[in-house]
């Protein structure tokens, strides 16, 4: 059983489109995250949710909107996609202040 699963693994789309990435964890964790990994492999937090409540929004453009329908799910919706949004997006989960377990990543390519 996959602990943290996100779909899709690959996403190619045109500029201006709206797209969503879904994430689910079956570890019983109370905290979920979205991280962005850029072309230089740098990992940066985007959002953090604890018990479905938004805790961290790290100066992400408001075209990015996370939604947590329950503690096991954290989806990411992106409006009006731009070329600069191309990156790998990782979902992760943890018990608040311990190690995070990551999904396999979604490689988003905006053309």
């Amino acid at each position, binding site marked *: 059983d996959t602990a943290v699963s996100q779909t899709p693994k690959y996403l190619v789309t045109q500029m201006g489109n709206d797209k969503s990435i879904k994430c689910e964890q079956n570890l019983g964790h109370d905290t979920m995250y979205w991280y962005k990994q850029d072309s230089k492999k740098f990992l940066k937090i985007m959002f953090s949710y604890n018990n479905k409540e938004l805790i961290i929004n790290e100066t992400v453009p408001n075209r990015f909107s996370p939604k947590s329908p329950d503690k096991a799910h954290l989806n990411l919706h992106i409006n009006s996609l731009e070329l600069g949004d191309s990156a790998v997006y990782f979902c992760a989960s943890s018990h608040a*202040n311990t190690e995070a377990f*990551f999904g396999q990543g979604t490689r988003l390519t905006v053309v």
Partner: protein
Amino acid sequence: AQTVTQSQPEMSVQEAETVTLSCTYDTSENNYYLFWYKQPPSRQMILVIRQEAYKQQNATENRFSVNFQKAAKSFSLKISDSQLGDTAMYFCAFISLSGGSNYKLTFGKGTLLTVNP
């Protein structure tokens, strides 16, 4: 704000040899965890080892061990008996146990390790 610095963008080692990856961090806090994550070409982020700041004993996981120097804010990873499967990007990461910042991992920029046959 916490920062994590990995000063070695790339390293290489011969199979079966030992290699040490460096990491330093900056924080004013006393309670935190430190981690090393591995990212092979498959892209999956894999936890290698964890160190609690309150523990003086260095963490060990099979061939992987750390040298944690709290006063110096240093957290290096030693890989013994390197294997080809250890080829990956290695990230050092920090998480605070205090206040509102304990809901995010702060990562270094990574060290690309290549194990040569």
